[in-house]
């Protein structure tokens, strides 16, 4: 059956800039916002956009990611024709090769894509936090009859030199792409979300595979090559909330944004987590409701089922099954699932990994830099 569009989510990267959070877990499967994993946002966007064929390319430490995704029933993506398919690296008759870049990963799964003979291919990342209707982008792509459409978000001009910037004509046709330009000419930053005409992309991917100097990356190689060859490429401006949570800093910032926002905000620039018309789905667990003890003191925080709170929680996010002891304090922090912050312990501006135990009276974080404690650590004394 021919499809108008199918999606591939690039979820295989090591995510080394998330440091301690990705030692034993792939970046897209890192917990976020209390009850989600980062990839839930992209998967929910696919589901809510009625995109029902989604391939997830995995490679690095995928056990948690694979079991999280399953066949996609949490996102309504357990479909008879299509649905979610996990695409790990594999061996062929002449042996196996790991995915060496994002473009290479797509090329190695050409059989999967061709099975659906799609007109267009949507390339997504598994590590962005946003709510986006991809069908609107597809409509724009079709209206422009583009070979490739790149979603962009407007950034402040003073920050533009940290991004890949698209320089476009008035009708958003791209004439130039600059990676981290010193003197940016535009504020349209690439979000790493692409729609390609599949037949065009296939040509370019095959050619790029033969180029020994290429790193086989969409941003670094494929997009510039296509521009150079004169393919018709457009920028699609997205005005909603969007955050690449690929670094510790941006992960922490996005978490704080989530706490700050009005969950029913009518404003497009907020994530609006409580907006039921575009739900973010995730796998649910059999935890009891959260218990808030007699002496607890909670302010401006997001807390989920299974938590038990006796102490103080302020400007923080607690994931499934977190325990906060008597007189413990959690400030400006993210505590991942099943972590225990014992009586009198203090956690400031920190990211505490799953199953961490912060022992009685210990202190994590100094409130200046972000402190990260990796999964399963047992913390005693003082850690910055």
């Amino acid at each position, binding site marked *: 059956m021919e499809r108008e569009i199918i999606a591939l989510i690039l979820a295989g990267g090591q995510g080394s800039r998330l440091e301690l959070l990705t030692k034993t877990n792939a970046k897209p499967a890192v917990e976020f916002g209390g009850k989600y994993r980062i990839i839930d946002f992209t998967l929910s966007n696919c589901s809510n956009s009625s995109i029902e064929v989604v391939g997830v390319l995995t490679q690095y430490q995928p056990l948690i990611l694979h079991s999280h995704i399953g066949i996609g029933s949490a996102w309504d993506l357990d479909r008879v024709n299509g649905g979610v398919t996990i695409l790990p690296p594999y061996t062929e008759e002449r042996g196996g090769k790991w995915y060496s870049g994002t473009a290479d990963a797509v090329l190695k799964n050409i059989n999967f894509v061709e099975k659906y003979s799609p007109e267009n291919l949507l390339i997504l990342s598994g590590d962005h936090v946003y709510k986006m209707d991809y069908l609107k982008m597809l409509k724009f792509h079709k209206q422009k009859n583009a070979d490739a459409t790149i979603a962009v978000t407007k950034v402040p001009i003073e920050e533009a030199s940290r991004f890949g910037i698209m320089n476009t004509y008035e009708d958003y046709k791209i004439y130039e792409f600059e990676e981290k330009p010193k003197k940016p000419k535009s504020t349209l930053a690439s979000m790493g979300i692409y729609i390609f005409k599949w037949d065009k992309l296939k040509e370019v991917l095959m050619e790029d595979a033969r180029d020994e100097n290429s790193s086989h990356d969409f941003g670094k190689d494929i997009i510039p090559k296509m521009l150079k060859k004169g393919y018709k490429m457009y920028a699609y401006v997205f005005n909603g909330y969007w955050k690449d949570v690929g670094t510790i800093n941006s992960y922490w910032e996005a978490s704080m944004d989530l706490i700050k926002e009005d*969950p029913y905000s009518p404003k497009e620039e907020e994530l609006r987590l409580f907006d039921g018309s575009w739900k973010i789905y995730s796998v649910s667990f059999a935890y*009891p*409701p959260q*218990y808030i*003890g007699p002496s607890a003191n909670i302010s401006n925080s997001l807390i989920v089922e299974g938590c038990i709170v006796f102490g103080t929680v302020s400007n923080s996010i607690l994931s499934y099954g977190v325990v906060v002891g008597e007189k413990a304090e959690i400030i400006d922090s993210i505590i991942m699932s099943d972590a225990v912050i014992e009586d009198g312990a203090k956690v400031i501006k920190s990211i505490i990994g799953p199953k961490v135990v912060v022992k009685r009276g210990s202190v994590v974080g100094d409130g200046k830099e972000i402190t990260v404690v990796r999964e399963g650590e047992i913390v005693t004394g003082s850690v910055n």
Partner: protein
Amino acid sequence: MLVNYIGVLNLNEEEGNLKSLTVNRPLASVIIFGRYRVIDFILSNLVNAGVKTVGIFGQTHSRSLVDHLGTGKPWDLNRKNGGLFIFNYSLENPPISDAKLLKNNMEFFYRSSGDHIILASSRMIYKIDFNEVARYHEEMGNDITVLYKKVNDSEGRFLNCDVLNLDKGNEVLSVGRLLGLNASVNISMETFILKKELLIDFIYRAIEKSKYNSFKECIYDSLDKLKVRAYEYKGYLSFINSVRSYYLTSMDILDLRVRRELFFEKGKIYTKTNDSPPTKYYEGCEVENSLISNGCLIKGRVKNSIISRGVEIKEGAVVEDSIVFSNCIIEKGTFLKNVILDKNVIIEEGKRLIGDKKFPVVIEKGEIVENLLRKAGEIKR
């Protein structure tokens, strides 16, 4: 694991005293402890012990129960072999006996693979490892094993329960009914283990003689012919047959020991999940000794209360010693004490509702519905 055991839940329970909470639903699907339904506890006990086939027999047509149970997926009962079977019949007048209800669905018993039955009701809330009971049943060579707990019922929470009179070997000598306060009695937990063929035999006998109103009477009438022994359960037990006992049971969950026993020991409690976001606690909110579900927005004050999903408690509202079902909205400056709010209730600004612990105020589902619909239209949750 009890792979050769079949669970049978008899929801033919008296619900007269639960009033408005059971107007729209059977007791089995009444919301409890925030995110659960009453039936989740016995159902989880069964599946945690490895039971893979459960038949649920009720008399009321109940969309709420069917919606909750679905294909049984949350309890891992969506199975090709075995799984969940719901036998729901519209209410006949006069109501038929539970024996007849089972009889009408005899095929279930013949077809299900397994040779033992665990027969239970949903109104008894407890957490047990049925493997241990089954071991006792098989090792003692009982024909029937019935669960019981020794209680000191000074509060009258087990009024109208069956009481077992036991000999030293725990054989059941006779059965009575608890009609007043009593210092120390053996409460029957309405849970029986017996062979499938014996159950089938009972059902036919009950129908033939047509003198029994309920299946358990039929068992009690066989005490002299069969080896009926009682298994002592020592954990938390609650019996829900009135608004008062529902309220007391709910409040029990604020006790750490009860919570630990029901939620964390001997397996999890499974229930239907939805996709609520986390609960947001605003600056200035005050929450104390309360159980809160996901998807709430809390700006006001909550004390000694149990809050279900998607509840909004606005600035200056005070909720004390109360139970709030899902999607209620408590407006600014209200005061609630000893109140039970059913689903989708809106308490308008400034209202005060004060009940008594023994006679809590119950507000029926969807009161002020029109306001709610307007609200839902505005905020689309």
